[in-house]
């Protein structure tokens, strides 16, 4: 009996710690959404109130007119979708050759790939800018899309580990049946790697959707801006339009939350994978 009450006490204690911490983690969110729905007069009321009175859905409409919101959303979507397709095409095939094909130079190249992951992006940032500048790509979204089609070292590494875990017998059996290497990859291995490919696609999607430094450097023309830059623009022009800034922040976060909601398992598997062996 006393063991049961002790256990119950422990559960109650855990719940109270978790609820308190959850509130601390949730409140900024609720505050963002609540501010986005308030009339401007209530935004500056003190002490602050959580419930908007009245709920002003118009803030969202107003905010999307304040900056070229839909144009920026379209730009962001183009960059995000194309670069995600890029990594889905390039990374699995490279990773497959690292994991399953035996070729001269493979190990050296793989070690180099691991080494490249440790170089801070700032080191390559300036020469890349000058390179893209010479190609005439600065001001277009090409520098934010094209590199993805040539592979991302971290994603290649992650997928390689995944392919390593698939049995060799699959490949050998297909070989005996006379399948070409391309067919083995495309019809057997790639479909099997779908969960891992989905994970790296999600990472790329998030990275592109939220990227700030890349667009800041390369998108020089306001009509080609992404949401990250657009949101910053808000801050420049009359920084006091808090209700609209919160509306756009909410809109920008929403797609990621929806994606997370539907693909929670893939998300978390991908993230934990990076830390699994410490």
């Amino acid at each position, binding site marked *: 009996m006393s063991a049961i009450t002790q256990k119950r006490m422990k559960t109650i204690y855990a719940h109270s710690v978790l609820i308190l911490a959850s509130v601390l983690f949730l409140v900024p969110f609720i505050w963002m959404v609540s501010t986005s729905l308030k009339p401007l007069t209530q935004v500056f009321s003190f002490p602050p109130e959580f419930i908007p009175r009245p709920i002003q859905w118009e803030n969202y409409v107003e905010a999307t007119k304040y900056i070229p919101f839909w144009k920026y959303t379209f730009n962001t979507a183009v960059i995000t979708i194309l670069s995600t397709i890029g990594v889905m095409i390039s990374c699995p095939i490279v990773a497959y050759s690292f994991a399953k094909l035996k070729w001269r130079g493979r190990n050296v190249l793989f070690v180099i790939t691991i080494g490249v992951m440790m170089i*801070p992006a700032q080191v*390559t940032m300036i020469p890349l800018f000058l*390179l893209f500048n010479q190609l005439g790509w600065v001001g277009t979204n090409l520098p934010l899309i094209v590199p993805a089609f*040539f592979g991302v070292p971290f994603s290649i590494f992650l997928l390689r580990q995944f392919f390593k875990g698939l049995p060799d017998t699959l490949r050998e059996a297909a070989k005996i049946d006379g399948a070409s290497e391309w067919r083995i990859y495309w019809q057997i291995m790639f479909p099997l790697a779908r969960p891992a490919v989905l994970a790296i696609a999600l990472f790329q999607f998030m990275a592109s959707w939220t990227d*700030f430094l890349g667009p800041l450097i390369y998108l020089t023309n306001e009509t080609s801006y992404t949401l*990250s830059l657009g*949101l910053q623009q808000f801050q420049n022009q009359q920084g006091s339009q808090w209700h609209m800034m*919160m509306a756009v922040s909410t809109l920008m976060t929403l797609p990621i939350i929806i994606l*997370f909601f539907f693909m929670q398992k893939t998300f978390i598997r991908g993230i*934990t994978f990076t830390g699994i062996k410490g």
Partner: protein
Amino acid sequence: MKTGQKLTVNKKMARAPKSKRSNETLTGWLFASPWVIGLLLFFAYPLISSIYYSFTDYSIFQAGDFVGMSNYKELMTDELFWISIGNTIYFAVLFVPLSIIFGVALAMVLNMKIKGMSVYRTIFFLPTLVPHVALAILWIWLLNPEFGLINAGLEFIGIDGPAWLGSTFWSKPSLILMSLWGMGQAIIIYLAGLGDISEEYYEAADVDGASFLQKTFKITLPLLTPVIFFNLVMGFIGAFQQFTLPYTMTNGSGSPADSLTFYVMYLYDNAFNYFRMGYASAMAWILFIIIMGLTAFVFWTSKRWVHYQGD
């Protein structure tokens, strides 16, 4: 005799796949070719030219002349360079240990087997999903000295809140606070680590009548050290590349009084506002050396404190 025979057979068997292997070499390179090109174009070439640029006075408008070590020498006497390093170290030294303490503590609670745990876990992960620009703007608003929620909360318990981002003393702690809010990713990695610790250890400890604290310090923390180590390294690397949050929060100015000018912000300024590409390249290489040095140092100390299960 028998062994000799065996050897020749083995040799034959080894030779047979050789032509196959050279065939596979072609296929292998072909399959890897996108990355080979990517590696040369987007990593090798910029890496080498970045070293070269760091010894020139390259700007977009003029081809750079070779100036030897002068960029590096100038950096040593550049006051803002040292300020930016100081700010970055301040942030790293406070944020990384705090994120480990809170992260591990939260993960341990989140690892308990009680009802509704997946809801809690989702809540702690949610802030990680907020894009950094949006996160910065949200926190400027939360930390607003007059109308912000944080100072209102402090006033509610009788504390007169500081000016946060308006104060040189509180600006960096503000940044640490908002970064701690978004550390869900680290928590998930800790959770994975906790999940890997075998139940048997705890069962054995329970038989011996160990207390909660004893179990935490003798079992959980030591066995979690590989994951803590991983988050420590990643935390330092991330802290040294801090850019989007302070840049957005200060509109690139690093104000008040450069208290939020971080290393990469100053690097960005030199490259893309003053167009001193050579000077900024030198900064990038110093950053690389700092990160490598730090990582090597953490690896070196890890032999003393990182325990692997089964060791």
